[in-house]
Each structure stands twice: as C-alpha cells, then as structure tokens.
C-alpha cells in the first residue's frame, strides 16, 4: 500500500495527462494520433477516478473505470472503422486535408 503518495500528486498527474491529450488533439494532424490523444484524455479521467476512489474510500470510482474502459474499447472499434473508411475513399487521414463539408 502506498500511503505516502498524496491525492494532490495523483490529481496533478491526471491533469497533466489530460492536458497533454487536449494539446495533442489540437496540434496533431493525423486522425489516428488525434484519436490516441483523446484516449489519453479518457485515461486521465480514469486516473482521477481511481485516485478519488482511493481517497474517498468508495468503490464507485473503480467501477466507473471499468465502464470507461469498455466504452473506450467500443470507441476504438467504431473510430478505427470510420478512419479506415475515410482512408479508403480519400487516401489520407490528415485532418487538414479533409474539408469537403464546410461553410
């Protein structure tokens, strides 16, 4: 048991990961990498849940993490399919080359 790690540190880690995710979404061009950044954001959320769960002594947070992981897996399945389909039609997954719909 790691009683010595305070909640604040874990939250700081989670927030850092979250921000990295957000920045990743904003600066990367590759749809896959953007998607990976989003996964980072979700995992930052998971981290926060686990941390809170431990600090609060309640199991709800841990359970939530399982749900989120399931959702994330489903998202991967759907997301990859969509991105692959775009690649088939357009032969690129750079999001700054895809703007047929605009205005």
């Amino acid at each position, binding site marked *: 048991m790691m009683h010595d790690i305070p909640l604040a540190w874990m939250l700081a880690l989670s927030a850092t990961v979250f921000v990295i995710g957000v920045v990743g979404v904003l600066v990367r061009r590759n749809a896959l990498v953007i998607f990976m950044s989003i996964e980072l954001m979700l995992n930052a959320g998971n981290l926060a849940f686990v941390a809170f769960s431990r600090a609060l002594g309640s199991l709800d947070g841990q359970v939530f993490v399982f749900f989120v992981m399931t959702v994330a897996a489903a998202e991967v399945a759907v997301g990859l399919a969509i991105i692959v389909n775009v690649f088939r039609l357009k032969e690129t997954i750079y*999001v700054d080359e895809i703007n047929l719909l605009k205005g």
Partner: protein
Amino acid sequence: MLALIPALPLAAVAVNLILGDRLGRRGTAFLACGAVFASFVLAALSVIHLASLPPGARTMVADVYTWMRVGDFKVDVAFLLDPLSSVMVLVVTGVGFLIHLYSVGYMAHDASFRRFFLYLNLFMFAMLTLVLAKNFLVMFVGWEGVGLCSYLLIGFWMDRPSAARAGMKAFVVNRIGDFGFLLGMLTLFAWTGSLDYERVFAAAPIVFHPGTLAITFATLALLLGATGKSAQIPLYTWLPDAMEGPTPVSALIHAATMVTAGVYMVARCHILFTMAPFSLETVAVIGAATALFAATIGVAQNDIKRVLAYSTVSQLGYMFFACGVGAFGAGIFHLMTHAFFKALLFLGAGSVIHALSGEQDMRKMGGLASRLPWTHGVMLVACVAIAGIPPFAGFFSKDEILSAAFASGHYGVWVAGLLGAVLTAFYMFRLYFLTFRGSSRLTHEAEHHLHESPAVMVAPLVVLAALSVVGGFVGLPFQEGGRRLTTLEGGAALERWLAPVFGEGGAAGASHAVPHLSFTTEWALIAVSVAAAAFGIAMASRAYAKAAGEPIAEKAPRLYGLLEHKYWIDELYDTIAVRPIRALGDVLWRFWDEKIVDGTVNGVAYVVEWASAVLRVFQTGFVGTYALFLTLGVAALIAHYLVR
C-alpha cells in the same frame, strides 16, 4: 355564432383546396363570395343583436376552447364582439364582400383564378380573427395570418421579379413590426399575468403606474408593431411596393382592411396608451409626420396605384394622430370612411387599368371621362370624398380628427394635418385630371381595347360610391335635432356607439378628456379645413386641367373663383407652389424613401449577411478548427469562473 364569422371563409378555403379544379371558375367564385357574404350577414345579425343590448353590456363573447392553460395563466381561442370590433367586422366583411365580387370580374382571365380566391378567403379568415380576437394571442394569429396572405398576394404574379422583391420587402418590414408586437405582448403578460383583453386592461391601472418605463416600453413595442402593419414612419416603404399585387388586393388588403390593423390595435389598447403619455405623443407625432410626408411624396408619383398607395399611407397617418391626440373614436371613424372611399379609389383605378389593358402610368391616360362613364363618376365621388368636401364621408371624419387635434392643443399636429389635407386634395385631383380629363394620351393599342368594365365590377363600385357619400353621416350629431354641429359634443351616432369602449368622454377617451370647443371655433375649423381642400383642388385644376388642354381649364378658375386671373398668375403659381411641391415630393421620394429608408433596411440586411459570411469563415471544415473552438469555449467557461 361569432366563431362562424371567421370560420366560414376558412371553410371555403378548405373546400377550395379539397375540390380543387373540379369547382370550375363559377363554382370557385360562388364559393368564395358566398362564404364572405354569409360572414357579412352573420356579422350584421350579430351587430343588430349587440345594438339591442343596453349600452353598458354591449359585449358578446364566444369561447371556442382552451388553447393553453398553465396555472392561472389561460389562453382561450375566444372571440369578442363589442362596439369597436363591430365597426371593424362590418367594414371588413362588407368591403371584403364587394371586393370579392369585383375580383370575379377583374381576375376573370387570370390563369390562377382559384389560387387567388384561395388566398383572398384565407386573408378574410385571418383578418376576421384579428378583429374579433378576445385576447392578444388570438389577435397575433390573425396579425401574422394577414401578413402572410399579404405577402402571398403581393407576390401573386410571381413571374415578375419586381413582385417577388416587393413581397420580400413587405415581409421583412412586417417582421420588424411583428417583433414589436410580440415584445409588447410578452411585456404585458409579464406584468399583468394574462393576455386576455379584459384582464390585461383591468389589471393595467393596478400594476402599471402611468408614465413609468414598463408601460411606456410595452406601448412603444406595440406601436412598433402597429407602424409596421399600418405603414407608418419609419416602416412604410413596403406599402407602395406592395402595389405589385393585383388591384383588388391593393384595395382590400393594402387600403381598406389589413393596413388599418395597426390603428385598430392602438385603439384596442387605448387604456394602455393613455397611461403612457410619451407613447401617445409619439403616436401623434408619427401619425402627423406620416400624413404630411406621404402626401408630399404622393404628389410626385405618376403610377396611378402608387399615388393611391402614398395616399393610403398618409390617410393612415391621420388615423394614427387621431389616436395620438386621444380621439380614438375619430380614428376609427376615419378608418371606416377611408375604407369606403379608398377601396373605391383602388377599384376604380383597377377598372381604369383593366380598361387600358394593364396601363398604370397616368401620363399615358387622359380624357377617359366620356369613355368610362361609370368609372369616371364613382372616381369623382371618391376624390371629392377623400379631399374632404362636405357632405361626403371623408369630410366628417377628417374634420373630426383635425378638430380633436386643435382642441387638445396639438397645434403643430393640426397644422401638419391641415397641410396634408391641402396636399391630399391636390394629388387626388391631379390624379383625377390626368386620368379622366384633358386630351387622350393613350397608345393606339390601348385605345383600341378601351372598354367599360363589366357589371360585376361596376356594381361594387356604385355601392362603395354610395357609402362614400353617406358614410360620414354616422358622425353627425343626430341628438338634439341635429341643431348643434359640434362633432366633439359626444352626440354623434358613431361616438355614442363606441362610447362603451372608449369611455364616456366619447371620442376623447375617458382619461384624456379633450376640452370642448366653442361653437364658433368649431365652425371656423370646419371652414378652414374645407378651404384647405378647395385650395388643393384649385391648385390641381390650375396645374393639370389646363396643361392637358381640356375645357375644364377654362371653367375651373370660375369654379374656384379665388384664382381667376391672368395667365401669369398661373405661371407664378406654378413656380411658387406646384413646382416646389412636386420637386419636394420628388426629392423626398428619391432621396429619403429610396436612399435613407430603403438604405437602412438594406443596410441592416447587409450587416446581417456580412455577419453570416464572417461566421461561415470560421466554419472551415477542419476538425482542428472545431476542436480549437471547443477548447476555447472550455477555457472561456473556466476563465469566467476564475476571474469572477
């Protein structure tokens, strides 16, 4: 029974839609006119019943069903017939029926005969809903409905781009007005907790203090709505353009009925307006300004329908300032007489246009008096009536308005009204001389097809002409043997009839009592206004009867002996009066109307479109941009929390 009055035209619409072309032209005409006539009969019967009630209890209510109810807030679909709405409903159904009848002849050769009557009946339904409504919400339904029908009918000949544009303009301007109406309605609701006339008007004196911001705001918002519908400054430019519609439509919607809805609404809310002196003053100023202003522009028009359109705007101005000086009854009186003679003018103009196979430019008319005897006769009656020559209808109502303005101390408004009266007489008789007198300036082809209109068109004209002659008599003081001709003495038939609505002060309104004029002053005012009209007519005859080279030019000076002199007086006259007026009208029209007012409307549209284009630029189609804006949104939310 009340609910049937608007329901019948609606039923005709439904039948028209369902049976479609199986009806045939005859069937369509019969259905459309029959429904409106039945409405008229029902309305007349209802009003007779209303008259049999004691004056204090003259209201009939028809609750159809509950539209929505939330706690103690309840809106019914309900109709109300009281003296005020009775005048309106009779005018609308009566004049409406005549115009329907006329349209059968006028539109006989139009391919979209059925569609025309469909819209016309739909309009009747909406208009009757508007005037018979028992609460603001039902009124608003009619309000929007007439706007929609007006839009449809202006753009009726949709293959003309100008018609489509005019329809769009009418729509834009009316939406601004509707915005005001809605805002006013919601404000009233917020304070009084109801939309029912009776409850709002009962609660208003309790919840509002006279002259406070709330009531002023509410009434000004309503006024904005009224100016949009009734084509007052600054929202009047759509009406002249609306003349793109078929002429019967101009007569019905853009002269006799729909455009008076604003006046009706102000009169209906007279309790609220009298509680907000600033708003009332605004009504008076707007009305007087419009009356004078539009009359000036009317002088410079060559299209016969546009003259009438500006004339309508101007006459509506009179109704407005009547309301503004507290003489609501006089406003409604003028509304009624105006409906008769202006419908007549439009239908007569329609008859001329019909006879000339669509020509509307007065410069290409002239000398039609002998060729179109019936049309000429009724048009002359109408011109005299609108000019305000006794004993025709327009004289009584206009004089009553001017006296009320004078009596209430609005001298500026009174002078504007008087000048407007001179101009009115001038442009109407200019129209008359250019069209019917002088030598014929018709094109050869038009000459060839020239014919008097069929009986189905002439008959309504004659009825309206008769009404334009006698319609003013309801303003006469029948009481006391008709000896005292003081129109503000509360003795006039119409005023007594309207008294339960506007309060015992008669036309003056209960809380806005206008001091009574002395006998002499009253007569002096009448003399002045008659003189003004005569002056205007004389000017027109000088300027146009002679120019056209008609014998009338020599007779006219003798008729109006004032100006009988040598030729140079005519010239001088032309230089100092006629030309400046025409030039002024021209400038106002070309500069103010087309540049400033239209420019503002277009400018607003331009700014909105520009904003739209700018916003579209942000919509780049790139995921990155979208994500960035989303993130900025998040950042803004959090920053908002942090800096608070």
